[in-house]
């Protein structure tokens, strides 16, 4: 590892890598341009003119607000459930070795490892068998199930880095289990939980495949968008909503990255 680090990359590699990154980013940037187009009926490029009127139109649409409110409520409650379950599971798996530990890790990862459609249809058929009507809570049930894994991943990584001797020291100094949790464990894992919670929120806010099976007639923002994609009614409003969704999901990701960037495992690498 001496001189090889300063040597620069071959031009062809640079071009290929740059093209790949452009391929990843240009389509998303295009959304931002389309949000301002004056064209209503088609996806014509270049936009015939630019306007900000669609932001006002979108602002006054009750269906958009309803979808947004449902999405935020579902994401908040699913995140809260995932935080509790994921942290408990991570604490148990990282502090002791017990029989079936590998199985528990697999159990947590499974909902996200299998294709979403399997999770979705499994939940739907289970609701049908048990005669559970679709409601707000059926959506939460599905979302919380696959959000556990992101909290779990972040918390497990942090627990591994936190040394057990600190907990022992706290106990030796006379703190009971609850005090140790409150003053030693919680401050240590707080940023990891915050990052995991934000990723879980972003995951739930964006989820569409499982939600189509568990939502019934209600519309979250992704379901609203899917509806517009299949049967376009008002394209300019869809453009604006798409742009807002990009911004809303990017902020938590950037913040989660910022919170965990010094760690050995950066949040978000396993979606």
């Amino acid at each position, binding site marked *: 590892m001496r001189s090889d680090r300063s040597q620069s990359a071959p031009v062809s590699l640079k071009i290929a890598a740059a093209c790949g990154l452009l391929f990843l980013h240009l*389509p998303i940037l295009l959304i931002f341009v389309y949000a301002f187009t004056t064209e209503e009926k088609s996806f014509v490029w270049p936009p015939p003119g630019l306007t900000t009127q669609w932001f006002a139109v979108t602002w006054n649409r009750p269906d958009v607000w309803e979808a947004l409110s449902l999405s935020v409520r579902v994401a908040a409650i699913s995140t809260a459930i995932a935080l509790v379950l994921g942290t408990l*599971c991570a604490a148990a798996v990282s502090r002791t070795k017990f029989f079936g530990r590998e199985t528990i890790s697999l159990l947590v990862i499974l909902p996200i490892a299998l294709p979403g459609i399997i999770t979705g249809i*499994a939940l739907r058929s289970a609701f049908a068998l048990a005669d559970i009507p679709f409601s707000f809570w059926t959506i939460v049930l599905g979302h919380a199930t696959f959000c556990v894994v992101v909290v779990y991943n972040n918390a497990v990584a942090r627990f591994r880095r936190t040394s057990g001797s600190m907990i022992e020291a706290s106990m030796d100094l006379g703190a009971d289990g609850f005090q140790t949790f409150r003053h030693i464990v919680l401050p240590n894992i707080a940023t990891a939980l915050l990052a995991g919670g934000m990723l879980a929120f972003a995951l739930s806010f964006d989820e569409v495949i499982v939600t189509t099976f568990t939502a019934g007639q209600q519309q979250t923002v992704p379901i609203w968008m899917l509806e517009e994609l299949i049967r376009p009614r008002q394209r300019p409003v869809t453009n604006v909503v798409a742009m807002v969704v990009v911004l809303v999901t990017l902020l938590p990701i950037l913040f989660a990255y910022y919170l965990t*960037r010094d760690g050995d495992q950066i949040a978000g690498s396993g979606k």
Partner: protein
Amino acid sequence: MTIAALNSNPAPAILPGSGGMRGALSDLFWRRPQLLLLLMLLPPVLWLGIVYIGSLFALLAQSFFSIDEFSGLINRQFTLKTYGDLLQASNLDIILRTVTMAALVTLASAIVAFPIAYYAARYARGRWKALFYLGVMLPLWSSYLVKIYAWKLILAKEGILTWLLAKLHLLWVLDAWLALPVVGGNSLSVSFTGTFIVFVYVWLPFMILPVQAALERVPGNLVEASSDLGASPGQTFRNVLFPLALPGIVAGSIFTFSLTLGDYIIPQIIGTSRLFIGQAVYSQQGTAGNIPLAAAFTVVPIVIMGFYLWGAKRMGAFDAL
């Protein structure tokens, strides 16, 4: 603390029990860590076990039921008839089409991902490294539907791609491609080519990350040694880099393959009317009301992924995750 200080104020060897409910609980957990472990594991295991595994088994069980073709009611008796239906030519077509698409998407993602992952792993340092990391992470976490929507804008007949090709006087290439039998169509947004491009785009970050992780572990001097010994860059790639990156590529391919197998939204929005497994599942359980056949269809990706994971594990792909 000196020994004298310790001796002057001796603490009792056994502390008295803490007072109150809280103290008693805390002491109990300290004496019996197994109990605490059980209490910690119980909520997540109950949740995932009942909600998730329970539902999965309910689904699998239904694949052994059958549908009565006259009444449309579900006959809850064990039968393999539904799996027999799966072997009809039209259903086999769907399975074959989906698996072919998944394989092509995986191959293309690996080819596009490699230069990005290699540059990020070997040449990017400091700020550039962070930039590359975020450059992959942000598209990964951007809204799935917005990404598909963006491609609908790009691939539409009046969209930016046609405009760009017209400016470059290359429109005839697009027309010639669309005139081809299987991959073509009226416009890119209603062709298999469109479906393929969007699949590659949406799953690409899932391939880049594990390949980069695998390449980070390749020492730079290994590549130098290879060229010192007279290998051309192509030979170095074939004999040194590629074999070492392979576990990462296989790990990434687990995602690209599995996600393509299960997706039903991308081919529905950008693609032809010919179905993929996900769409077949969706329409069987929805409009057709044939839950047993839908359940049997979901078993296909599970079985394929089971074999895939088994093979990947043998190649050591899980160490690269």
